[in-house]
């Protein structure tokens, strides 16, 4: 039976509801949508909604690479640095190309806040390497021309 009680006392532990906890990742995705990363307030909000502590939420969120704790650009470019992309002239070569084009190093964001450049582990596009992701969109069989195209289109969208 053991009904769940929530403790308001300053010296009490929270009791976690497994059903709510299992919504954690989904909730974090939603919380991340607004700012592109998890703000302190977003973490607290998620904790409140799920009946957990911000520490619980942060503990889980920081485990996963798709949840970000720091601001990023409007478009996050993730260049696959997997083995097959490397064998197909991708990986660093693509990253370097994008880097030069945007004038930012890995991990940086352009001054206008448009692009953040990162590398990412294997995107399961080995058969269509080299690959990269921009936000949730996957781009495969990359070549300098295709990359130019993608970036120009994104810049034009503003």
């Amino acid at each position, binding site marked *: 039976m053991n009904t769940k009680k929530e403790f308001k006392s300053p010296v009490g532990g929270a009791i976690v509801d497994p059903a709510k906890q299992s919504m954690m990742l989904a909730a974090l995705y939603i919380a991340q949508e607004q700012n592109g990363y998890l703000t302190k307030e977003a973490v607290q909000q998620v904790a409140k909604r799920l009946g957990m502590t911000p520490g619980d939420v942060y503990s889980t969120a920081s485990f996963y690479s798709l949840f970000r704790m720091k601001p990023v650009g409007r478009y996050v470019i993730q260049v696959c640095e997997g*083995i*097959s992309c*490397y064998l197909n002239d991708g990986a660093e070569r693509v990253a370097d190309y994008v880097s030069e084009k945007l004038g930012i190093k890995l991990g940086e964001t352009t001054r206008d806040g448009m692009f953040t450049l990162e590398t990412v582990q294997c995107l399961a596009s080995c*058969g269509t390497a080299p690959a990269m992701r921009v936000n949730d969109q996957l781009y495969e069989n990359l070549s300098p021309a295709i990359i130019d195209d993608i970036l120009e289109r994104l810049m034009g969208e503003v």
Partner: protein
Amino acid sequence: MTNWEPVLLANVNRPNSEKIDTYLRYGGYEALRKALKMTPDQVTAEVKTSEIRGRGGAGFPAGVKWGFMPKDAPVKYLAINTDEGEPGTFKDRLIVERDPHSILEGVIIASYAIGAHRAFVYIRGEFFLGVKRWIKAISDAYQKGFLGKNILGSGFDLDVSVHRGAGAYICGEETAMLESLEGKRGVPRTKPPFPAQKGFWGKPTLVQNCETLANIPHIILRGGKWYSSIGTEKSKGMKIFCISGHVNSPGNFELPLGTPLKEIIYEHAGGVRKGRDIKAIIPGGSSTPFLTAEKINTPMGFETLQAAGSALGTGAIIVMDETTDMVEVVRRITRFYVHESCGYCFPCRIGGQRMLSSLERLAGGKGSKQDIEDLEYVAKGIYGRTFCPMGTGMAEPVLSGLRLFRPEFEMKTAKN
């Protein structure tokens, strides 16, 4: 070249292959109708007869795994592993994006067999299109009465939901996946208890890779005997081989298990680019040991690859030609595992850091003999002694790289 009629990939190249109507038009959900008329035990028996082994990497016999599910437990779950992340592997993504219903049909049949009324799809967070396809497939299946209450009038109920991972390779390990499904950090659990005893929310749970599940409808329709007639002695059925790297036509090829490596590379994937020689092959995803060109006649089966000194893993073949810098390849693969270590057990977390440090120096031309010795010492230390299999997967490429290509490593230290 033997041209096999595709089973798992029969639909993927059809227009609108992901739509339920397409799936139905080509005989979709017939296996489900058949299965629902069988008893759950009969379904499990058929799967056992087929001798199909899990396609996620470990190769555990699926029928046996189903048999582990306790019969008397009131609440059981099925968890579908679509967390494909092993470098070189891109087969699950293909099925999910192009033919999700084939997996879903397998999910429903498997749930029926083990008596689960809830199934959870865990999909890699990066597979954004895959997430959408799963959701659409599930909602269409509900509409057509393949999911929900009283499926096709059989009295069997099943609900399926999709859960998106968030970029942690380790969540492909079944217990880590369950932790992640529960909304926790994806750290593997102690086994025993196995998921079949205590899985999701502490209830018996069957965790199965999506390629495995996509096989199930065919096994039910055509019979386990048909399935076990394909393949080698210990590796039955059709398998999707992902081939990438220095080949002319990379991609997914569905072939019987036991097809020789050579046939896959030279006949199906169009041979090595620029007609070069092969230096190394990874036969089953980046955690399986390298093979040299000498082993090119090895049949792609569980037992045959093991005899050749490697493993079938996920069936992801990466071909590297004679120009490849093997030190860089090992460094890159190691970097992947170091990056993806869950940080739980010591040898994997810190051993990886130490190996990578040596490999970075070696690849950068700044290494020494000490680095090679260190590398070997650490990899041997990690091998087989970590909490989950990932540590061994991290050590394999290093050990086999050193075993097969040691002179290349030594060349890199020549200057120092």
